[in-house]
């Protein structure tokens, strides 16, 4: 088994399953399969097999007390994200990618000063509301 502080980097398919676990909390294989198959065709056995592999790798934990085993992610999302951020491709091209993204917030984070100002602006609003 992998050492707990040296978890292998998850593959794309594993990351998908981890995302389900992070967003839904501890779930059964069947739940994971039903969520994943909502966006792409996936065999139940494939999901099961993947999750067994992930258990062996230490990426997920299995609670065997119930009749249907309950799986949960062994590391929080932030930890894995940090690990992924070390990915060379991610690091090298994050800047280039950010200019291609459109969304509600800028690709770059606001500075501490800006955040303070934002809090102040919205704080005034929250007080108004009261």
């Amino acid at each position: 088994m992998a050492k707990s502080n040296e978890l292998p980097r998850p593959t794309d398919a594993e990351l998908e399953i981890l995302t389900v676990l992070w967003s839904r909390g501890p779930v059964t294989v069947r739940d994971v399969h039903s969520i994943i198959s909502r966006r792409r065709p996936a065999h139940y056995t494939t999901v099961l097999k993947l999750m067994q592999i992930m258990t062996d790798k230490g990426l997920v934990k299995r609670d065997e007390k119930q009749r249907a085993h309950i799986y949960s992610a062994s590391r929080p999302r932030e930890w894995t994200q940090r690990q992924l951020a070390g990915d060379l491709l991610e690091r090298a091209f994050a800047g280039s990618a950010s200019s291609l993204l459109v969304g509600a917030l800028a690709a770059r984070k606001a500075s501490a000063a800006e955040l303070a100002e934002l809090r102040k602006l919205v704080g005034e609003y929250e007080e108004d509301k009261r």
Partner: protein
Amino acid sequence: MTLDHWLAAPLAHALGRALAHFLWQGALLAVALRAVLFLGAERSSRWRHQAATACLLAMPLAFGITLALSLGGGHSIGEPPPAAPRMVFSPVIVQGSPAAPVDWLAWLAPLWMGGVILFYAFRLAGWVRVDRMRRRGVCAAPPEWQQRLRELAAAVRVSRPVELLESCLAGVPLVIGYWRPVILMPLGALAGLSAEQVEAILIHELAHIRRADYLVGLAQSLIEGLFFFHPAVWWISAVVRAEREFACDDVVVALRCDARAYAAALTTLEQSRWPAAYATAAANGGNLVRRIRRLLGEPAPARVPSARASALAGALVLVAAVATALVVWPPAKSFAQATAPAASATDKMERTTEPARQNVEELKELLAAKEKDIQDAKQAIEKSRELLQRNAAELDRAMQGAGGHADEFAQAEEQVRKAEAALKELESRAGESQKRLDDQRLAALLRQLAAGRQAGESQQLLEQQERALQQAAKQLQELTSGKLDEALRQEQQQLARADRALQKAHAAFGDQSLEEIEKRLQQAEKEFEQARWIGVGRASKFWGLGNEGRLAQAQQPESPRPQAMAESGSAYQKWLNEDVAYIITAEERRDFLALRTDADRDQFVEKFWQRRNPAPGTPENEFKEEHYRRMAYANQHFASSVPGWRTDRGRIYIVYGPPDEIEDHSAESTPRQAWRYTYYTYIDGLGHDIEVEFTDTGKTGDFRMVAAPASHGSYWQVMTGASDAAGFAARSLQAKGFPAITYVVRADRPSLTRVLVGPYPDEASLAKAKAELEAEGYHPVGPQ
């Protein structure tokens, strides 16, 4: 084609010229946009966004037209031959080398192309990464939000289907793609914000989709890459991005009306991404503060011209100066005339040189006049000389002729002296004129030099610009080449791995294509299901008739086709009667015995395991591995006078796996063991909560199974049959809500299993259950 050839090509020169012209064109467009935005300050963000986008699109247009004119026009559209005075100055600027500007411009083209290729390579990699975010680390959002998104999409009038995903990689809500747009919400955002706030964010993203901002963003990237060297392009691009967000905010406010809740949602989102531990040095995050102020209706603080603005202004001035220098360059083409700013710059240059030119004209006239004077004076001297000679001759004659003409002689001598003095005066005046002329020439030369220095400075600026460009390109190259290489290597490794996997797959499945294999697998699965159900039907009938002898016969080495099996050797017999004796279905056994060739048998064995593989398509077969492990375990632990796998405990272990509990009384006078499979362990084919008891009455080490249901009430017996068939029956009963269990009845009948329904504690519930079972088509026996 060598670089020299390429540089000599007309295209290189035209490109260089178009690039140089773009310096002032871009600056001019940026200034125009600034003016338009200033005048349209009260207009909607949508209008301002369109203006900025139009300005951005005008840039490649201007460049393209310039390039086409430079390429096709040649001298036919060139300006009239340069005026003579200008020619006087050109040697000073180009330092006497008329070919220099051609080389310089042509060198611009390959430099620029290198930069563009680098920039595009970067953007392409970025695009690949963005596209990966669609698939990587995402899961479908809860159905209620999907439904809400569809309603909101109708409200925003987005007709394309939009996918809503939760992503663990996206830090902020994002839109990816144009044809099949995907909205990525960061994990936890759907749960962390109020429903109203999530809706506001979704409307913002839908507005992006509606406005095709993703496509505009791609086009923007292409243009940025083309003119990466020009600060004006970056400025306009930033304006487009800012106004785009304003416009989407406006859509949200128009649809939701509550700007403040929306502002609060944006702030919460921004805050949630901030404290992440690996945050890099907080960069200037752009215009969120401006957006929130705008949403809350707060006035923007008075803007002090920032360092960025002044840098931009400085860059524009620099660009204008460089453009001026280029336009003054000979042999300038029609654009110098056609474009006002360049023309005015030329005029300015000409104005500074005009006085000097006039001076020279004046000096020339003066020189001509003085030369004429000198000529006149010289003629006068000549005349005086002739006169003097004549007088001297007369004097000689007179002196020879008559000695008494002393007076006349003195007179003549006086005349000669006078003429000589006049001559001297004339000569000194001519010298003075010459000196003044020299002084004036020197002054003109000094002015000429000053004008030349001005032009020289312009050229220096141009060269500085070029050096900066070269340096930037070099840095960019250094910065990226290593990382690109690394990424490439990783991709290649992945490719190699995929290749190996493919080869393995080929080895496993021959030349069949993946779809074929998939299809065959599905077919096989379907057939297997059908076969099993047929098997269930037949087996139940079979066992219902009580035909137990058939099974015993099947287990003996004598098979219905003894010859065939004898030919094929004992390996297959061992496989059938030992390896899989407990798990093969009656149907499969019959099929196997009907096979004639070893190849068919091998294929059968292969398929037999494949059908039971929990993860088809993978090289490992967990079922098979586990089965052989259990065989080995049974042989190791349960062997007595008979091999371990043949004992009762071995059989139960092989078929049902390790028990959850073992109650061990081996040391008692009558050695006894109770194996318990708890409710939580689901045994395929049997259900839950199975207890099997063994006893070793002979104390030989060979425990025998005791068939006795551990009941707390009465049961209906529904059927007795092979464990597989009984398992199916029990499962289908369970699916219908009956408390069905299966029991292995007799130790010496490995596949004899009874399906019981119960326990029912009293007569009423027993009768009710019987009626229900009969309604389902079963024939309950008992009760027991």
